[in-house]
């Protein structure tokens, strides 16, 4: 990569207020006269609501109002508007909010909430994918045919199927006839939680002119605005969503969360500000979590290691509301295999409703889960073929410009370097060398590898825009709509501005706290799309700005525009560095010697739509779904301890093909993604009782990785292979860093002890079960040591 002054450098982030304690999150927002809301959750997973008695609640001093589902007879949602504001008629999951109290203090709201009595008639809960698909299964959504859906979602009213996606490529029958070896397996991942540190909170008020104002912990301010307006029938220009710092999102704060609840409460209470803040338990119970998965896969290859056929049934356990998850079902359906060319594919991806907590996006949008399954198919095929798993991967890796996507469109020439990431990751983990055998005979080490690819899953018209304003001192304000939830995209954008204009990065400000009525539009902050999409809009805005600078300077020095160059924050006549005007001098226009002012304030504007993406054919999935794909490979060395049945990741290697704007930020994503991925692989699961009650809504029982759990060594590299239309070639990174780990760890465990992991998380119990099934002799050997046979 060419050497730049700012781009590619680990320049410290601008949001140092986080380090000094004055950063403001929605959690910190308080308004004068603010009221406090508290929700009452259901105590059944599936039941009819017979009666709600809140007369006692109303008597608590300070209580203003109690709302129930009947106060809001409509649905909200993004891809499938299947969500009630508060449960109506039935509760669909344990914790489903059935009523909401608004009071003058949080204490009064809490006391009143406890006094609300709800009488239920329990119904049979549907708690597994298999049960949901039984022909005689109870219907969770009885009137699905009435729901609003995005045009690309295909629900099946009269069943529990929220979306059914078909992908057909080539001739599956012929493909399997050609295959010499076939591997058939099932893989499962449970529902899990984003476990971001800032619990969801939303504050809303309605001003006397009808403006609805919202502060909330969200990723995508414009999506919140759009969905509030669309769901509540409000004029969009009257909805203002304020974006503060966000204490982590990971997909769990994409789209509309519960913002409509404080908005509706405020609307019914004369516009007074209403705050709804969830505590940790409520955040587990009420907020959408990540779906569970079941993959049934059958994959075939020829003797010489060519992948020829892949058949799959993919099921997503979406919980009670599949509003967002239906689109994840699409995502895993139209990219149903790893980064390999497979000529014949037949996949059905089916998103089902169950009586569990609703689900939504999660970093990776189904791709971590799909790769967990598919990358183990690859290792199993390699074993059957007697081939090195790396060699099998390299043989079939997507070749940009030549290979076809599962959706039958050719992969663009400059798409990246999948094979390069495989080779480099293998090198870094020491592929081919047997890991050291620990002294303790009950400990085993192994290495494993998993490749992956992903691009954003977005509507074909997902738009972005950027505005660059020059201030009187030559500093620059950048307005973009992308959210800041830790990933730091806006600071990478600031580096691009500094580079393009040749000004110190300290002179570029991208305000983190912004509102939808005062920044440029973007569709959503999801799918690792921010840098690529906002980046392109920003490059255009900078071109626009530089063009205006050239126009002014050309006029002042009486030359042609193309004789002007922009550098060091100035517009200069080429070859005459003394004939220059600085950004500061032309910030508000330029005043000629005779007093004539020209041009006026400098504002650059730019926009972007991914104009090459298309709709997909409903019968075959054919089409161009994504504006870019980032390719990568992860590799791990693990140690399996059969005494305590624990798996430790000793080393984790990430290699991505893309260049990066700020290696400090990108490494932060890589390490954070690795630790989150390892945590998901080894620990995380939302556990339910037989009747659907959540057992672990807290951090004692829902275990996320802590400092002591991280790998001894973490390495990440970026190969610098860019896509031409991306800003400085840089594609998305954030989600990509999390995709490899469950697959790579499972492959490494097999390498260590010859046991295949088909179910997450790899807890001691689940590992023991897999060993008992597949290699019980390991346990016999263990007995020898335990009985002191040494």
């Amino acid at each position, binding site marked *: 990569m060419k050497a730049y002054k700012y781009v590619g450098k680990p320049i*410290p982030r601008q949001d140092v207020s*986080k380090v000094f304690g004055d950063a403001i999150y929605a*959690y910190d927002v308080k308004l004068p006269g603010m009221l406090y809301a508290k929700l009452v959750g259901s105590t059944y997973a599936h039941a009819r609501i017979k009666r709600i008695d809140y007369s006692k609640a109303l008597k608590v001093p300070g209580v203003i109002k109690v709302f129930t589902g009947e106060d809001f007879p409509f649905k909200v949602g993004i891809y499938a508007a299947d969500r009630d504001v508060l449960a109506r008629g039935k509760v669909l999951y344990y914790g489903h909010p059935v009523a909401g109290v608004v009071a003058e203090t949080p204490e009064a709201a809490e006391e009143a909430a406890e006094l609300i009595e709800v009488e239920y008639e329990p119904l049979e809960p549907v708690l597994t994918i298999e049960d949901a698909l039984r022909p005689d299964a109870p219907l969770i959504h009885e009137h699905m045919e009435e729901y609003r859906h995005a045009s690309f979602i295909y629900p099946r009213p009269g069943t529990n199927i929220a979306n059914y996606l078909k992908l057909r490529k080539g001739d599956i029958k012929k493909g399997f006839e050609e295959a010499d070896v076939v591997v058939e397996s099932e893989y499962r991942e449970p529902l899990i939680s984003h476990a971001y540190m800032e619990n969801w909170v939303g504050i809303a008020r309605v001003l006397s002119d009808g403006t609805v104002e919202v502060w909330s912990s969200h990723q995508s301010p414009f999506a919140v605005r759009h969905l509030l307006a669309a769901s509540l029938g409000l004029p969009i220009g009257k909805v203002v969503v304020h974006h503060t*710092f966000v204490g*982590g999102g990971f997909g769990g704060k994409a789209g509309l969360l519960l913002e409509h609840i404080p908005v509706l409460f405020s609307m019914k209470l004369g516009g007074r500000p209403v705050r709804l803040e969830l*505590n940790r338990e409520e955040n587990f119970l009420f907020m959408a979590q990540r779906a569970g998965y079941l993959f049934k896969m059958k994959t075939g290859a020829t003797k010489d290691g060519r992948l020829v056929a892949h058949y799959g049934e993919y099921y997503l356990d979406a919980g009670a509301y599949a509003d967002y998850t239906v689109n994840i079902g699409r995502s895993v359906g139209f990219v149903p295999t790893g980064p390999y060319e497979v000529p014949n594919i037949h996949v059905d991806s089916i998103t089902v409703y169950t009586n569990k907590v609703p689900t939504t996006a999660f970093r990776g949008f189904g791709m971590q889960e799909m790769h967990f399954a598919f990358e183990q198919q690859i290792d199993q095929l390699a074993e059957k073929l007697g081939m090195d798993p790396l060699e099998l991967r390299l043989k079939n890796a997507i070749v940009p410009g030549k290979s076809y996507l599962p959706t039958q469109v050719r992969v663009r020439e400059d798409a990246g370097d999948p094979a390069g990431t495989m080779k480099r990751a293998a090198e870094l983990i020491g592929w081919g060398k047997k890991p050291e055998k620990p002294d303790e005979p009950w400990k085993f080490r192994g290495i494993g590898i998993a490749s992956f690819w992903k691009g954003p899953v977005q509507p074909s018209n997902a738009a972005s825009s950027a505005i660059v304003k020059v201030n009187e001192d030559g500093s620059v304000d950048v307005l973009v709509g992308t959210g800041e939830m*830790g990933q730091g995209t806006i600071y990478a954008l600031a580096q691009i501005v500094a580079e393009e204009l040749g000004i110190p990065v300290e002179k570029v400000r991208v305000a983190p706290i912004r509102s939808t009525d005062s920044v440029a539009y973007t569709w959503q902050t999801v799918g690792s799309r921010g840098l690529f999409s906002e980046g392109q809009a920003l490059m255009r805005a900078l071109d626009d700005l530089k063009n205006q600078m050239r126009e002014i300077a050309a006029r002042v020095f009486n030359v042609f525009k193309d004789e002007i160059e922009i550098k060091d924050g100035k517009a200069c006549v080429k070859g005459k560095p003394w004939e220059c005007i600085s950004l500061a001098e032309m910030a508000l226009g330029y005043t000629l010697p005779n007093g004539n002012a020209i041009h006026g304030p400098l504002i650059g504007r730019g926009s972007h739509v991914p104009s090459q993406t298309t709709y997909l054919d409903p019968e075959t999935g054919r089409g161009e779904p994504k504006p870019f794909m980032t390719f990568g490979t992860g590799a791990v060395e693990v140690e399996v301890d059969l005494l305590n049945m624990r798996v430790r990741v000793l080393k984790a290697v990430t290699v991505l093909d893309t260049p990066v704007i700020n290696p400090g930020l990108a490494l*932060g994503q890589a390490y954070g993604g690795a630790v989150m991925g390892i945590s998901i692989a080894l620990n995380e699961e939302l556990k339910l009782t037989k009747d659907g009650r959540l057992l672990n809504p*807290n951090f004692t029982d829902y275990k996320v990785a802590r*400092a002591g759990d991280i790998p001894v060594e973490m390495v990440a590299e970026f190969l610098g292979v860019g896509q031409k239309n991306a800003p400085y070639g840089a594609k998305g990174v954030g989600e990509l860093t999390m995709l490899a780990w469950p697959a790579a760890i499972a492959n490494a465990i097999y390498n260590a002890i010859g046991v295949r992991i088909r179910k997450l998380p790899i807890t001691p119990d689940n590992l023991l079960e897999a060993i008992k099934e597949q290699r019980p002799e390991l346990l016999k050997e263990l007995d020898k040591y335990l009985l002191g046979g040494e």
Partner: protein
Amino acid sequence: MAETITIRLKVNGVEKEVTVKPNERLLDVLREKFYINSVKAGCLRGECGICTVIMNGKLVKSCLVLAPEADGAEILTVEGLSRPGKPSVVQRAFIEKFGFQCGFCTPAFIMAAYWIVENMPDASEKEIKEILNSVICRCTGYKQIIEAIKYAIELKKQA
């Protein structure tokens, strides 16, 4: 109405008497009576460590300390570590080493880091991790936090 009591606290060097309910958490007293913005809640049951501050020289989870227990105590939060434009070594290290992302956990980690730098300047990586185990960060994967702490120890030694 619940009875109230008066307690005296010294927060970041400023002493003040405040009237609180006996079952009020130190966390809420700091946020509501002392206007300390950095102290956040993540769980209110001692599990996430996001509310960590230094009380009488010790790292404590302010959601687990009841107001009466804090009577007479000296409390330090990130607001007390620096003056505008003059970051402490720990804050400087977090900035230079990318020791934060969303920032919601950051004040807690900065206080843990400050405590380590002040009290255990020879801490091994393992010992650093043991102390950090009491705070959850879901964003960073801890590596850059640990690097920042090691760097802060070095900066302090140089100074």
